[in-house]
């Protein structure tokens, strides 16, 4: 018997070795420099486009995150108690803290405001799934402009930033207005709405069909909902697929998205995929939704969209659009 044997026997007991918890890394190899360079070059793009850096606190009140993103997101934040018993959370996302700050500090006259950040966010993940719980993010917010110019600017910058890191990238664009309009026509219960949302996130039309069978509603709306998850592709192809439902007058819900795409820089436009069935886990998106993908990474490396309702949670009514790039997934 070697000493090693004793060591392994201790694995059976509950004593924890000194180390790091799951999903956390202490990076000290060459990747550190690479990540630093990537963050720097993306930040430079943001700053060059007139965005100002914000440095938010690492934790604030749990309530802020629940108000901004709802319980289903906030419950996945790392939470602990303040001395006076109030619940605190490590920031789950950067958009919510920025929206809270802007709502409390700024008035309508101060708009538009353009901010960027390069900070870490913290998210609970199931054990042993290989997902980071501390994500390095670089992102920006364009606050105070309801028109498509803001969306165009933000998506162009995202394209430029992704191109800096990887040669091949794709930006997926959607607009949740069409989806929410159809849902509103079907008068679903909350339970059914949750189930429909879940099947959209997975593009699971089998389960979606089973749910819709239980629902009363106009069959044309059910039919388009059933097809929506796969209205994906080039703008031309998606509009073609939508044509079959033209009598329902859906174009008012897609015109905005199509105008945005028309006005994008040529170099960015060729990397765009439209997905009218794109439904995201953050409930605060109200119109344009954005995801970014690159080769060799199985997850979305960028997430964002227009969130004109978020500020209402903090007593203001400001339109805004933004995105975050998860640098952790590149390396």
């Amino acid at each position, binding site marked *: 018997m070697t000493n090693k044997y004793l060591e392994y026997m201790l694995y059976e007991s509950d004593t924890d070795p000194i180390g790091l918890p799951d999903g956390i890394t202490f990076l000290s190899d060459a990747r550190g420099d690479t990540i630093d360079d990537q963050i720097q070059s993306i930040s430079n793009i943001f700053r060059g486009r007139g965005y100002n850096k914000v440095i938010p606190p690492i934790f604030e009140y749990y309530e802020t995150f629940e108000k901004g993103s709802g319980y289903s997101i906030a419950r996945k934040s790392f939470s602990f108690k303040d001395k006076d018993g109030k619940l605190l959370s490590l920031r789950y996302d950067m958009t919510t803290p920025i929206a809270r700050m802007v709502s409390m500090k700024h008035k309508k006259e101060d708009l538009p405001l353009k901010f960027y950040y390069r900070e870490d966010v913290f998210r609970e993940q199931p054990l042993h799934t290989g997902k980071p719980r501390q994500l390095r993010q670089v992102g920006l917010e364009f606050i105070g402009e309801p028109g498509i110019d803001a969306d165009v600017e933000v998506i162009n910058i995202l394209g430029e930033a992704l191109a800096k890191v990887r040669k091949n990238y794709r930006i997926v664009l959607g607009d949740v207005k069409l989806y929410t309009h159809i849902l509103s026509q079907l008068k679903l219960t909350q339970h059914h709405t949750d189930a429909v949302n879940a099947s959209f996130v997975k593009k699971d039309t089998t389960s979606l069909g089973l749910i819709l069978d239980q629902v009363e509603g106009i069959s044309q709306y059910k039919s388009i909902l059933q097809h929506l998850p796969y209205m994906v592709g080039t703008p031309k192809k998606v509009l073609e697929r939508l044509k079959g439902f033209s009598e329902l007058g859906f174009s008012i819900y897609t015109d905005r998205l199509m105008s945005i795409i028309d006005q994008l820089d040529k170099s960015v436009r060729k990397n765009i995929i439209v997905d009218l069935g794109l439904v995201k886990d953050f409930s605060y998106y109200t119109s344009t939704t954005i995801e970014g*993908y690159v080769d060799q*990474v*199985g997850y*979305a490396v960028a997430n964002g969209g227009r969130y004109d309702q978020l500020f209402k949670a903090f007593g203001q009514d400001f339109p805004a659009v933004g995105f975050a790039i998860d640098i952790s997934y590149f390396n």
Partner: protein
Amino acid sequence: MITIALPKGRLGEEAEEIMIKAGVVKKKVPQDSRKLIFDLSDTIRILLVRAQDVATYVEMGTADIGIVGKDVLVEHSSEVLEITDMKIGYCKMVVAAKKGTKKENLFSLDFLKVGTKYPSIAKKFFSNISIQSEIIKLYGSVELAAVTGMSDCIVDIVSTGATLKDNGLEVIEELFESTARLICNRSSFYRELEAIESIKDAISTTVAGA
């Protein structure tokens, strides 16, 4: 190149038959070989993995698509796209207990000991109907837990029900029906949209025609 995570065993072989009919692949991979990676052509690579691991390979992007039972997907709540129902590997997720057990009696116990390979599904099911449950995670032959009395009931999948019957158990409650799904990695779906859509369409057509 599209990488397919194929589950070892009968489900994988049935899936291969559908994929051959659909023209996605030309031939089966040898399941008895020790090799785990097969390049079938310049465009298709097969990874032979355990059924429980298919969703993991696909979610992380190591495989672009894969075939896995809905039961496994529900248990692991993996972030993958479920692009087609392959309508094979049919089974039901059920609560089962010793023959003669009355549902009212079982579900009125203060807390239930539940033996299962599906701890997450079992926990959520009993919580939803306000029954306190203690989950005993097992890795196979789950019936034994109920037969020996180690647990009050089991949560498991049944296809014909023969195993339950042979062990003196019966179904108390049906949770949901499960079939195998063609799943896809989110990033692969958008980056290889045309290739994946054509596989999805070919398989849906084959499944619908069979």
